[in-house]
């Protein structure tokens, strides 16, 4: 029963690499929505059925699968989506870095002491790999929306780690975290629209006015 969860986590890691390497922003947003949906289904697979897990699942599916992509696609529509911007180290660099990060995550996770019932699961490596991939995405991309997608990947990675604690963490905190995520994405979407209006582009490398003179 747990190998099904493992296969899904492999799919999640593959989505990371896809998001790192794709040049189409719409595809990246759809991929992160898919990742969110898969993550929403995971609690049902790793834990026995309880009502509060069902509530979490529905909430996550709505938030990550519907709400957030809708906000992001709305922001994308209002901004120019013309020129493709090369990430700082190129797409190949992104993919390589993502692959290296995944390997490092697996190596590092093997050294962490786990509770007995979690031994041998892919949750910790997948979570670390997704977090690192999120960092790479934020650092390497120039368009503001891609940076938000990277941030969402970071949050997804943290959510995967939270799967180990579904019984321990009270529902309210998870719900609150998700609400904050939605609100955060909403604010970021608004900011992106303003950026686009002000600079007529969402290339964050053009925002250099506030650099230190010295």
């Amino acid at each position, binding site marked *: 029963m747990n190998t099904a969860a493992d296969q899904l986590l492999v799919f999640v890691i593959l989505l990371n690499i896809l998001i790192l390497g794709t040049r189409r922003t719409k595809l990246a947003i759809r991929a992160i929505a898919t990742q969110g949906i898969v993550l929403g289904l995971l609690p049902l697979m790793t834990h026995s059925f309880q009502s509060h897990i069902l509530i979490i699942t529905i909430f996550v599916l709505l938030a990550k699968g519907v709400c957030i992509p809708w906000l992001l696609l709305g922001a994308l529509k209002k901004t120019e989506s013309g020129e493709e911007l090369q990430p700082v180290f190129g797409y190949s660099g992104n993919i390589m870095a993502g692959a290296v990060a995944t390997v490092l995550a697996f190596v590092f996770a093997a050294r962490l002491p786990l*509770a007995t019932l979690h031994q041998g699961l892919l949750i910790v490596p997948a979570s670390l790999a997704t977090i690192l991939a999120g960092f790479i995405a934020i650092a390497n991309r120039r368009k503001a929306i891609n940076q938000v997608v990277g941030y969402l990947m970071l949050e997804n990675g*943290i959510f995967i*780690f939270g799967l180990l604690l579904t019984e321990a963490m009270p529902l309210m905190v998870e719900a609150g*975290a998700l609400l904050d995520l939605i609100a955060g994405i909403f604010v970021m979407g608004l900011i992106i629209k303003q950026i686009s209006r002000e*600079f007529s582009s969402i290339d964050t490398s053009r925002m250099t*006015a506030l650099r230190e003179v010295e």
Partner: protein
Amino acid sequence: MLILLLTLIPLLGALTAALIPSNSRRPIVLPIVACLQLLLVIAVTVTGPPQTGNGWIHLDAIGKLFLLEFSILFAACAFYAVNYLQYRKERNNRVLCSGFLVCLSAMTLATAAHHLGLLWLAIETTTLAMAPLVYFNRNARSIEATWKYMLICSIGIALALLGILFLAYSTLVAGLPPSLNLETLQGYAPKLPQVWLSGAFILMLVGYGTKMGLAPMHTWKPDAYGEAPGLVGAMLAGGLANCGLLGLIRIYQICMASSEVHFYKSCLIGMGLFSIALAAIFLVRQTDIKRMLAYSSVEHMGLFAVALGLGGKALYGVMLHLIGNGLAKGVLFLASGNIHRAFASKNREFARGTLKRAPWTGALFLAGFMAMTGSPPFLTFASEFAFFSAAFSQGHIITGALLALLLMLAFLGMSLTVVPVVFGDPPKNRERTKYHERALLVVPPLALLICLGILGIWLPQPLYRLVNEATALLEVAR
């Protein structure tokens, strides 16, 4: 319960502010709520022994000190806002007023939160609430500042959440019933596996340190503090940075109860010294007043980190300094807001001779600078003295010496900007703005300054008791 009341009043105020249609009447809500809040807070802190609430919400001595500082600062900012917003009539202040009040409510909740998850939620809410306020000036520079603020602070907060998850998981690995309650975790601390605990500490140090503004996660600070209005900057520096400090203090309490404390202390001291050094370097020849204040904030947050790492007598200084730093930053930012209005610029090239153009503001700015850098008779002198005496008496000679050197460098750097701004003659070829020294623009910072002065000389008995209790809470079984 009283805490819930304290949290709900600002929320109701925010709702009211959002509903009032008139732009000029709206700021009145701010002082009303602030006064109510302040009275309640003084009642709570002065009277009575700590309340025993349930595990989630409980106002202990540390929380009371933070709450006191937030409320006093907010009251000053609220009164200031009434006149300030009259000078900014061209902008709609609905978002400003509501956001301010929501932020106050979230900060209040954070001080009382004893469940780490609830604390995290409250701090995240303050981040979100202040984001639109940084964008108040609506130009290209402030959108850049807002974007950096939002992205970097969100990443930091996410890392702090991961740290909390690590902490919760460490209890599972140790075979103990999982809990995120502060006291329970303190009890568990010696039995938790070190790998997970250190991981949690580092993540929360980086995460909450981003919110505080420790280097190297401080890059959003100069931009955000620089582009936000002075009013917002005061709340950011005195309120939000302190929220980050609160988060750090909570994880500090847990980690200090465990077995290997040396690692945590060296992390804190290292990061703190790095922040102070970086801030001192960037403070020199800083032409923008508000960015200078931002680096000063980075410096003081670094000072907090070093003091927490030193432990012992320095913890008493931490408690004093959190009030002193918050109020002094309030003075400086409010005064800098006045300077910006008076000269239509915050660059020291154009904002010169404040004593001649706006005498009260100039005097306040200068006195605030003295307070910030720790000169007697202000409260910050007592706290910084406590830091130094702790460093030297506990044998951290090098740390103490570095601290002295860097603080002196920072003082010199700041004075290079402050002195030309305050003294001298106003620039001749700039047209004179419509700014006049109005009562409410001057009295709040003056009140804060007088508070600092009085507290520096005499601590009222209830406050003294409170500070001692808070210090005792920090000096956990070592």
